[in-house]
């Protein structure tokens, strides 16, 4: 092997750093995609049931949330071994942040005491839109787009829709999350 100059060594370290970043991004997008698809389907299903079988809505929401959280923990346990120590620690921080967001949402609803389900849906979609956008600013720009779409549709749908409000929310909130999850899965390591 011919002698390496400091410039060659620096270029090699730059290549290493870029490969590490692209690997982290590919894994992060894969894991994020799993969660977006899971919760997109859960939220979409809950709103669809509320639209077409409103008498089961009272049980559908808590049941789907319970299944969602159980699968979330399973996914974290399955996926986190792929990450290095720092990444594994952050996975639990993400999960706790999401849980804190849900607790904050419930506290806000208790304080604001919305008069109907449309106001309640609006508050939840704005809380999640804020969460996605904030997470996206720190990590993945696709989440910013997802957050802005959920927020914008969450504001517009209660105003525009009348008889198909719940189905519209299923498409807007669940659908946007599923679309964002699929996009992250398809793009993988691509920057």
């Amino acid at each position, binding site marked *: 092997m011919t002698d390496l100059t*400091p410039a060659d060594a620096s270029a090699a370290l730059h290549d290493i750093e*870029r490969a590490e970043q692209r690997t982290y991004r*590919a894994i992060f997008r894969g894991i994020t995609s799993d969660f977006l698809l899971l919760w997109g389907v859960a939220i979409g299903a809950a709103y669809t049931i509320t639209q077409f079988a409103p008498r089961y809505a009272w049980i559908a929401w808590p049941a789907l949330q319970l299944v969602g959280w159980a699968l979330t923990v399973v996914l974290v346990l399955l996926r986190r071994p792929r990450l290095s120590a720092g990444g594994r620690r952050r996975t639990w921080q993400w999960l706790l942040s999401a849980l804190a967001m849900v607790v904050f949402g419930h506290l806000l609803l208790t304080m604001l005491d919305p008069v109907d389900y449309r106001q309640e849906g609006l508050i939840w979609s704005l809380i999640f839109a804020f969460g996605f956008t904030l997470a996206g600013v720190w990590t993945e720009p696709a989440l910013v787009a997802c957050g802005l779409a959920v927020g914008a549709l969450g504001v517009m749908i209660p105003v525009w829709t009348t008889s198909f409000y719940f189905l519209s929310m299923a498409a807007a909130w669940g659908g946007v999350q599923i679309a964002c999850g699929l996009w992250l899965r398809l793009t993988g390591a691509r920057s």
Partner: protein
Amino acid sequence: MTVEANPLIHQDTRLRIMAALNRLSGPATLDFTALKAILETTDGNLGTHLDALEKAGYVAIEKLFEARRPKTRVKATPSGRRAFAEHVAYLRSIIASGEPG
């Protein structure tokens, strides 16, 4: 730790393969297709360099079928991680000394 060049790892694609696999925790693997996307290379190029790294004992390649589709999974072996760390230390030592290595 011995600070010396590793000509096998230093080749551009092999260096990036080892960097990508080293980013994962110990038992974790990367799919061939994911690795190909990360490195922005072709099937043939990646396959050739993986063979060379496997012969040196730096990576372990597992071929299996999932839903009747062939899958190839790759991970860095402990000796591969060690060799990669040594090569990175060598690169850093060249930069620190400011002299060709």
